[in-house]
């Protein structure tokens, strides 16, 4: 008897509580905002900054210059691991425990801005000093929520010695040329597979989109208000990408963690698409003089356009010391600081003028990355991008491994994308 009364009471209380819930109907502003101005003068007080991995380790050294230029200011850098950093940011934001400043992966910008966690960039920042595609990663619905800190882009690595053997001396600039090169490398060289491509799975969109963009595909429509996957340019790109697998030029059954650098160094797979960090990896394995045996080339297509990634600097809305936080960001975006940062971390500068420094212009391969960066773009910074990209990855896998028709695959992706919407 007592138990039933208790249960009834509990249920009624919960029912009452539930009726008190509900979304308010005020429309959230979706017009582009500009940040508030920051005060002039030296930075003061103390702020906390989060940075991941090696960047987090090396940052305190760089920050000392900022502290000496602004006596009395103190920057506490906390290094956090890349592994699960995204989870840490999300959880901290929801519990109002985010830091003042942080470096944030470019693909996370849409999501964090959508949570209402980021402070819009003040007018003092001139976006034109950055690579256009990189600056675009921080642009969410017309408002800039951060500035690019360092960048990376993808190019095709290829073995120059093996290509020469196969009769290729100049890198191709169109799709047919790349296909012919791949065939030649496989037939005339000793390659098991010509090129290392990801047959679907997480992140495979980063391999497909460069071809699509180079073919003129636009991922958004309606002036950037909706997704746009089901286009002829996209279909051509996906068909082209999948053809490498069907023609035996790329491994359909490649494991999730491929042995790219080992295969490249041994010649088993003499081409692959990746970013600048792979240079030191393959050179370590290739031994002395390996740097002369390979080179990088731009993504072929009508207008070579690769994927730009890296990290952006953001200031969180709940910061208690907004002025100092943005001043630190200003310091880190200064070309001289950018070069100094490259010297200590080998992260590529996001500021275009920093590339004129001899440190960067001397290395020919690096200069090629710089060139590719000029036209590189990022996927739209919608808060739903990760969800849509996962669907895209899944369909890419079906096309590459199960022979699904690319047109059907893209229709599926577009359906999911439309149902997810572009988020808040």
């Amino acid at each position, binding site marked *: 008897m007592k138990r039933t009364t208790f249960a009834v009471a509990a249920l009624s209380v919960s029912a009452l509580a539930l009726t008190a819930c509900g979304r308010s109907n005020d429309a959230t502003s979706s017009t582009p905002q500009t940040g508030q101005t920051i005060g002039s003068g030296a930075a003061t007080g103390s702020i906390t900054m989060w940075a991941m991995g090696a960047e987090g*380790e090396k940052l305190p050294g760089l920050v000392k210059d900022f502290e000496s230029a602004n006596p009395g200011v103190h920057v506490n850098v906390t290094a956090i691991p890349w592994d699960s950093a995204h989870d840490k940011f999300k959880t901290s934001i929801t519990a109002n*425990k985010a830091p003042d400043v942080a470096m944030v992966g470019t693909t996370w910008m849409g999501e964090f801005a959508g949570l209402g966690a980021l402070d819009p960039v003040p007018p003092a920042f001139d976006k034109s000093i950055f690579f256009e595609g990189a600056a675009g990663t921080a642009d969410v619905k017309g408002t800039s929520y951060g500035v690019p800190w360092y960048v990376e882009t993808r190019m095709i690595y290829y073995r120059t010695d093996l290509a020469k053997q196969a009769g290729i001396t100049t890198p191709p600039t169109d799709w047919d040329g790349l296909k012919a090169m791949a065939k030649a490398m496989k037939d005339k060289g000793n390659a098991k597979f010509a090129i290392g491509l990801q047959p679907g799975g997480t992140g495979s969109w980063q391999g497909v989109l460069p071809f699509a963009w180079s073919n003129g595909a636009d991922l958004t429509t309606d002036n950037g208000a909706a997704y746009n996957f089901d286009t002829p340019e996209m279909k051509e790109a996906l068909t082209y990408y999948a053809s490498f697998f069907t023609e035996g030029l790329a491994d359909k059954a490649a494991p999730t963690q491929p*042995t790219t650098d080992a*295969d490249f160094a041994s010649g088993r797979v003499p081409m692959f698409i990746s970013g600048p960090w792979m240079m030191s990896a393959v050179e370590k394995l290739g031994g002395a003089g390996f740097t002369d045996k390979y080179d990088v080339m731009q993504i072929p297509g009508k207008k070579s356009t690769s994927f730009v990634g890296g990290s952006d600097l953001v200031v969180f809305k709940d910061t208690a010391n907004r002025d100092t936080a943005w001043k630190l960001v200003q310091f880190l975006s200064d070309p001289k600081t950018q070069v100094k940062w490259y010297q200590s971390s080998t992260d590529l500068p996001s500021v275009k003028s920093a590339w004129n420094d001899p440190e960067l212009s001397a290395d020919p391969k690096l200069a090629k990355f710089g060139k590719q960066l000029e036209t590189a773009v990022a996927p739209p910074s919608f808060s739903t991008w990760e969800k849509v990209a996962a669907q895209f990855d899944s369909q890419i896998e079906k096309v590459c491994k199960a022979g699904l028709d690319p047109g059907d695959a893209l229709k599926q992706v577009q359906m999911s994308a439309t149902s997810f919407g572009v988020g808040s």
Partner: protein
Amino acid sequence: MRTNRRPSITTLTYVLLAVALIAVIVPFVWMILGSFKSEGELRRVPPTLLPQNGTLDNYTELLARMNFTQYFANSAIVAVAVTAGNLLFCSMLGYALAMLEFRGKKLMFTLVMGTLMIPGVVTFVPLFILVANIGLIDSLPGLILPFLVSPFGVFLMRQFISSLPRELLDAGRVDGAGELSIFGRIILPLLGPALATLGILTFLGSWNNFLWPLVVAQTESHYTLPVALALYSTGQNAAQYGLMLAGASIVVLPVLIVFIVFQRRFIEGIASTGIK
């Protein structure tokens, strides 16, 4: 004692166990050996077993870059506290559930099992928000308290204790012992193997815990060892295998020691005596 055991069966058992052991232990051995290899050697295909050019670089780099003693101390304090708490509180409740009658016993057991069955991922964020609101973020108590008594431990102790004879309690009551002293003086000493097992499992779980310490710590001074090691060995685009294996080998060492100590002292001791 074992007069009816033919020597050939024993030999066969040894051989089978040895083969099984080799099969089982290869990845572990590879991990330890790999920590002494250079990054280049680790990425080679096919992988080598013994290091070609053994190097201590991974260890020296790791230990030089990080404030090892602080992270080790944090991990140790948290793991010891959590293990001690669980050994005491889980056996207390496990005993009550196994041997005593009380109002709400069924409810209590249902709550214990219920908690055990809820996927941790769904309570993770609400728990974090709660801990933040209490003010335990970025503190060692924040790392210890939510795990001080685990339903897994309660369930384990309940099962072990329920296999003890009830006559022990009756004997104790006849002798005029209070309920709590029956628990402390009679039951607890007989729980050697169970406590040792729970101790190992709890210590292991706490020591290797990564996600919770990662989000609770706001400053590096509160990092535990697994978090710090992830910091130095995972990258945005490429993992550093050498550092990662060295880190994994360092992390595994205290657990190995705890295992050996607990197993030897408690299991071997009780085996020959059985129930007193």
